[in-house]
């Protein structure tokens, strides 16, 4: 599948799941900050991506778990260098450059853009 094909399908999934207009679903759009996604929406998106692309998304593969509860990875509300390295290995598909520039744990959600989902799906279908 090409990137464009994946993007088009991810765009449809998000338009439905987040009840937004198609035009709002741009590659840079952040799922929560821009498209209003709540926690339940991440689960909905997971179910829909599994169904649309015929893939299985195991726990923690798309959205890493038990990262910020680990004191080695977080200090004073910011992700440490060790934490960033861990994040890079768990989310090799994602573009973490913006987050690395300001690794505030409250801004972690911004990593999940439409493009992040497209990149993830590409690793699973090809």
């Amino acid at each position, binding site marked *: 599948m090409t990137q464009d094909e994946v993007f088009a399908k991810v765009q449809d999934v998000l338009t439905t*799941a*987040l*009840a*937004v207009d198609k035009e709002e679903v741009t590659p840079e759009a952040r799922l929560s900050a821009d498209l*209003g996604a*709540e926690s*339940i*929406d991440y689960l909905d998106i997971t179910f829909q991506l599994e169904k649309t692309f015929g893939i299985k998304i195991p726990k923690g593969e798309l959205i890493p778990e038990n990262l910020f509860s680990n004191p080695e990875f977080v200090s004073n509300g910011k992700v440490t260098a060790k934490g960033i390295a861990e994040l890079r290995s768990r989310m090799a598909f994602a573009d973490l450059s913006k987050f690395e520039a300001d690794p505030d744990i409250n801004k972690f959600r911004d990593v999940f853009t439409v493009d992040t989902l497209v990149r993830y799906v590409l690793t699973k279908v090809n």
Partner: protein
Amino acid sequence: MKFILVDQLLALEPGQRIVTAKNVSLAEEYLADHFPGFPVLPGVLMLEAAVQSAAWLVRQHSGFAHSLIVLKQARGVRYGNFVAPGHTLVMTAEVVQLGPKSSSFKIRGTVDDATAVQARLELAHLNLADTDPALAPLDAAAIAALKQRWNVLGAGARAALPA
């Protein structure tokens, strides 16, 4: 229980936006069941508050042309914070499309500035006479009663006690 989920009109931009308030009180009996030991406003009643708020905007805009304004479709209804007794659900409904027979809205309900619910709604505007002209008197009676309710709601008057 009276099935009225709008206690107060806070703001109205005719044909565009309405903001209402719904107080949650332990006096509301169903709270004993939802849930025992943890009373919170049921999610569907937040949705109902949104539908009723949007319906008032439609009625005011259309000059109370319809007796029935009902939910045709709700999409993307997401729940956030709980609304507990003693707190108020502030509901904002913004018009996306407003026609004679149907309308659609983007709604958001907040509790203490946190989001409790957000959704997109589509309403249908009907009169019983559309189905059977003989029912026109029922429409008229319903509309008259709704106009009364609106007078109370939209009055905005402060009731002062004499000094």
